[in-house]
């Protein structure tokens, strides 16, 4: 882990460190008491479970809720380990920590600071839990793609699966999908009504009408009070984040001392094989044996791959030069390029400037006066429609390929009549 360069003068003020740690603790959701951080520096066991939970909260993509609270500590610990490993956390000591929260608080503290150094964690957490005042929707697909759900335990299929059961499940899935779509349509219709009816009610001329949250506030004053309290909480978190950013250098100075108290890590060899976070409990000696065995295996595989590659190249060189071979290769390359080009053109055709990321507030306007940074619904719809058309074309093509394959299989067994189910 690299050591940060910090301004030594910043740490000179007395009491600066407790302030910094307190700010950090306030800026994180369910942040542990500042005491925990101090205990963790000295690797005290009582600080461990709080830090596991904090790391889980930071690394878990799901929004906070009762569901999260009920996950056992061992499961949280395991998920934290795998998430850190997949993000490239360099210290091996973390993977070897026991998951029952009995020790390792200093290691966890190091992991937390590694995450804090990599990206704006408090700001990201704040963005996750922000309270939207307007009716919002996202345009880009980033959020959907970025949410990595923790991998479900691998389901072993017990024997052959009855295809009727699969059909049944498909039917249920399709049914739920259509229910979702019609619920969304209902929501859109109702939003439209609210926006229409509350025209002229908003103090901000640019917006012109109320959103659902704002209308609710007017209707239900008690709910409005609750919203106010939530906003105040959010505001306090934001202030804490700002305080944290100001006091940050002190924290990093202190973390350097924490790193100093750790035993030096074994130098990470470039050729060391990657470890899975789940390491069975065994003595150090056995672990070294396993490491050595894996290294030998890796060497052997590398040699085998080399041999195979040389052999293939020799073979390919022979037949890779004939005129039909190069013609075939040219033809297939051209087809691929054409397909790729068509797909790219399709996507870029109507999009114009790429829409901004993140959620946008829905505003209904009578006239066509939209600001420069505003996105027009009509344009977005056009873009989405053209993307949909592209994807449908790809789907049809793939379906056609499947059909051809089925026909080929059907033709392979003469005397057997295949009756395909009524298409839908």
């Amino acid at each position: 882990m690299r050591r940060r360069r910090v301004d030594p003068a910043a740490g000179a003020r007395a009491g600066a460190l407790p302030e910094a740690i307190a700010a950090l603790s306030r800026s994180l959701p369910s942040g542990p008491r500042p005491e925990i951080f101090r205990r963790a520096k000295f690797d005290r066991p009582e600080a461990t479970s709080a830090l596991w939970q904090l790391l889980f909260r930071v690394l878990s993509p799901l929004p906070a809720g009762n569901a999260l609270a009920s996950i056992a500590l061992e499961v949280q610990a395991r998920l934290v380990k795998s998430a850190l490993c997949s993000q490239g956390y360099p210290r091996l000591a973390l993977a070897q920590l026991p998951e029952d929260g009995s020790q390792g608080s200093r290691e966890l503290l190091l992991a937390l600071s590694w995450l804090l150094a990599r990206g704006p964690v408090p700001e990201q957490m704040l963005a996750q839990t922000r309270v939207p005042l307007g009716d919002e929707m996202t345009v880009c697909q980033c959020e959907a793609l970025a949410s990595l759900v923790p991998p479900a335990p691998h389901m072993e299929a017990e024997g052959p699966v009855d295809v009727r059961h699969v059909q049944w499940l498909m039917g249920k899935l399709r049914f739920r999908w259509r229910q979702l779509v019609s619920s969304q349509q209902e929501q859109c219709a109702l939003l439209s009504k609210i926006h229409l009816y509350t025209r002229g009610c908003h103090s901000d001329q640019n917006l012109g009408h109320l959103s659902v949250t704002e209308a609710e506030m007017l209707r239900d004053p008690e709910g409005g009070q609750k919203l106010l309290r939530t906003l105040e909480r959010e505001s306090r978190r934001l202030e804490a984040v700002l305080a944290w950013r100001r006091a940050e250098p002190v924290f990093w100075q202190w973390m350097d001392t924490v790193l100093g108290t750790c035993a030096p890590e074994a130098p990470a060899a470039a050729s060391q094989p990657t470890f899975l976070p789940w390491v069975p409990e065994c003595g150090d000696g056995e672990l070294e044996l396993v490491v050595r065995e894996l290294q030998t295996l890796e060497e052997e595989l590398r040699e085998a791959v080399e041999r195979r590659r040389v052999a293939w190249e020799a073979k390919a060189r022979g037949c890779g030069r004939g005129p039909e071979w190069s013609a075939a290769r040219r033809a297939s390359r051209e087809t691929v390029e054409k397909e790729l080009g068509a797909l790219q053109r399709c996507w870029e055709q109507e999009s114009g400037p790429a829409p901004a990321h993140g959620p946008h507030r829905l505003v209904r306007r009578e006239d066509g006066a939209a600001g420069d940074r505003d996105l027009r619904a009509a344009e977005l719809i056009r873009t989405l429609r053209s993307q949909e058309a592209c994807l449908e074309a790809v789907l049809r093509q793939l379906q056609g390929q499947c059909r051809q394959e089925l026909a080929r299989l059907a033709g392979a067994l003469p005397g057997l009549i295949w009756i395909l189910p009524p298409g839908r």
Partner: protein
Amino acid sequence: MSIVTVQLGQCGNQIGFEVFDALLSDSHSSQGLCCKRENEAYQASCKERFFSEEENGVPIARAVLVDMEPKVINQTLSKAAQSGRWKYGQHACFCQKQGSGNNWAYGYSVHGPRHEESIMNLIRKEVEKCDSVSGFFIIMSMAGGTGSGIGAFVTQNLQDQYSNSLKMNQIIWPYGTGEVIVQNYNSILTLSHLYRSSDALLVHENDAVHKICAKLMNIKQISFSDINQVLAHQLGSVFQPTYSAESSFHYRRNPLGIDWHVRPPLSGPPSLSKMSLNKDLHFNTSIANLVILRGKDVQSADVEGFKDPALYTSWLPVNAFNVWKTQRAFSKYEKSAVLVSNSQFLVKPLDMIVGKAWNMFASKAYIHQYTKFGIEEEDFLDSFTSLEQVVASYCNL
């Protein structure tokens, strides 16, 4: 969440009227056996689903009426208006001057495309009046000419234009000894087309309902009106608001939220007392069952018998059994129960119809009436194939 009803043909329109009537009169019934707040929630939920409000307070049914001749539609409109309690929308109907002579092909290939735009416009207007549409409820007969041919066409259109909405078709299974010679052809064509575009087929057999009228209700001269009223009672007790297990604090928002995978036949009459289980255990395997209980003592009702795994298929790991309950009594019955079942119950009748249709087809009887309007022999063969697949899938449950 609202449902838009499409009433097709003589059958669809007459039944549709009875259904709306039953729903509204139950909603206004004074013997709900529950507290005032509960009753009001019930009424509000029922109203939002099936009716829209007008200025003078008379609820207007969310329905589109379609028929090729004006007689039945006019009767239906006037009966509704006469009741004074509700009515149909003024411009909610579409009719022509001529019939289609029980010719499915004429209905599907000629009437359908010719009047597609007008009919879909009417439906669209109805949809726009709703805050949110949970789905469409299409009432039609299976074996007639107008209702069935146009019904199949309209359902297909709804599938294309409103692919995200649920569609449930209420179809009337004809009498085994029906009067229309080509009813079996019409039936298989209707079923195979609906199977592709509808989400759920709720089936009422004329024979079964007839038996209810005769045996349970002791009606001597059974008219279509009696049959339709029984039907409406059954449908009403399915569609009125209920609580399901997940959301026990407010009425289910989506009444069409039934997890059908393949089409569900309706079995079991509504009983006047608690449902008693006297089924032979291996008689009928179900994919899914839904029991709806209304009235007194619903919380303590014992539905364990429905959860017996022997009643269900082996490839469903968890029983697909749901119970919906409400304390609010339905239509003055102190207690009532309805069973909606997706099971092998209709395999035999379906097989019979397919068999009869096939026999006729083998001798090419009456085929020219269909080929004249664009339904070729290939279409018949496709229909037979689909239905044989359905029968086979159900037999292999």
